[in-house]
């Protein structure tokens, strides 16, 4: 089974983002960029499937400007076999990403697509669900455990409000990763070197026949109002007294 993994380049999780003074977005120049953490979990799961003999080939796909190739290289260094870079400088929103990925899936015919549940920049949490809808495939979102069965089905345990849920889906299907699915590996230096030789195919939205134009217009971006620090108390007893008599919340 071929596995397709989508990887997104985002502002690193440890960067404190700054809103641009003209209110058009956040500062991404000279800021550390990384692979979205949930996409790392997606790549790791694909590599583990291959190591377990369940996957035959892993294709890592990223969409966006030239620098996305670095994110694909990271996936290749973790163990993906080859990359596809859909190159565009248009702002990509989840529906457009899903359409572009669908076009890649139509070409590649994988048995499983793994995506992160959410990108930590736009926090949309849509792309995996949209991709499976456009493909007419089942969706297994927020996965914490994946078991591929022999009969063209898979059991996926999902993180839901209040606990866990297990569903069975037919293959091919789309899965999105949650935190506890696995712990992604660091790429070793020899694997980073090897990744430089792995092929990355370049495509464009035009070649895939997809109009990636955004549907949502961003009118402005502002910083949220800041919360100010309060007071320090000396003891638990003083804390309870303040909560009862000053804040009156207990």
């Amino acid at each position, binding site marked *: 089974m071929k596995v397709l993994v989508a990887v997104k380049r985002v502002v690193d999780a440890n960067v404190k983002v700054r809103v641009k003074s003209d209110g058009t977005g956040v500062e991404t120049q000279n800021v550390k960029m990384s692979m979205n953490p949930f996409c790392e979990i997606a790549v790791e799961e694909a590599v583990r499937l291959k190591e377990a003999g369940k996957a035959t080939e892993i294709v890592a796909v990223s969409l966006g400007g030239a620098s996305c190739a670095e994110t694909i290289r990271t996936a290749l260094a973790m163990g993906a076999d080859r990359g596809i870079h859909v190159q565009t400088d248009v702002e990509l929103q989840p529906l457009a990403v899903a359409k572009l990925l669908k076009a890649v899936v139509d070409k590649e015919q994988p048995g499983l697509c793994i995506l992160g549940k959410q990108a930590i920049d736009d926090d949309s949490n849509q792309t995996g669900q949209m991709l499976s809808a456009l493909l007419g495939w089942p969706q297994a979102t927020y996965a914490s455990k994946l078991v591929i069965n022999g009969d063209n089905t898979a059991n996926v345990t999902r993180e839901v409000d209040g606990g866990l849920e297990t569903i069975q889906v037919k293959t091919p299907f789309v899965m999105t990763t949650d935190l*506890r699915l696995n712990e992604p590996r660091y790429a070793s230096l020899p694997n980073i070197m090897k990744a430089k030789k792995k092929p990355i195919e370049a495509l464009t939205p035009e070649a895939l026949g997809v109009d990636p134009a955004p549907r949502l217009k961003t*009118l402005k971006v502002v910083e949220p109002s800041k919360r100010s620090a309060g007071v320090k108390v000396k003891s*638990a007893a003083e804390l309870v007294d303040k909560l009862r008599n000053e804040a009156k919340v207990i």
Partner: protein
Amino acid sequence: MSVLIIAEHDNATLKPATLHVVTAAQKIGGGIHILVAGQGVDGAAAAAAKVAGVAKVLKADHAAYANQLAENVAKLIVALAPNYSHVLAAATVNGKNIMPRAAALLDVQQISEISAVESPDTFVRPTYAGNALATVQSSDKIKLITVRATAFDIAPAEGGSAAIESAAAAGDAGLSKFIGQEVQKTERPELTSARVVVSGGRGMQSGDNFKLLEAVADKLNAAVGASRAAVDAGFVPNDYQVGQTGKIVAPELYIAVGISGAIQHLAGMKDSKVIVAINKDEDAPIFQVADYGLVADLFQAVPELTQALEKK
């Protein structure tokens, strides 16, 4: 204009999240209908009909909806959506799972987790873990939206008397099936609707030590939450997680114990009314947002807190 709300429910009762979505719908304007899709949903449909401001309840009672499988519920939403200008759901795990699937089938760019309504086509939504608030305008004919419940007041659960109509089921897509669930039975209130939340972080050192927080929670009828670090370390299950990629809470009182205050955690709780932080590191960023800070060893301070709460 008319708004269809996808109800969050457990067949018998309507979840409070839906009442917050009703308030968001009122800010958009137009008639409000609620879709209750499930199996044996008379209880939840009756509760939805009583919500103030709701004009009609659509009841889709069918085995295909028993476990809220996205493939089946999205199909139903797609069949109903053309009658409405807006379709809204709470940004719960369920809402986040189902709505984008329906949106893609309708060729609509969904607007995720809105925190304010500026006009019927313009909304505010937090991005970058809540560090940037984006105002976005949609050009889609039907707007599909998930709503951050904590950003909107709760609508009165009583006072309405909407008609309940049956909606034709759209059938089983036959793509997936429900196998089972492990849901923790707890006497505590739900994390997202609790009046008080007590959360622990990496500083708790073990899952066992969360008993200390449960003792405090018992005194305050509070829910127990956790930071991502505590979930990552395996102390507690993922559904405890408060933060950017977990649950968003805004209780009257949030007590953060042994939590340093990473931006990803603050994203999930900074709209709480009163924040208390207990941490031995006085430079921990959590103190920058806390109304009351106690710099102390939590293993000493938390039992003392439990004791102090016993005294009236």
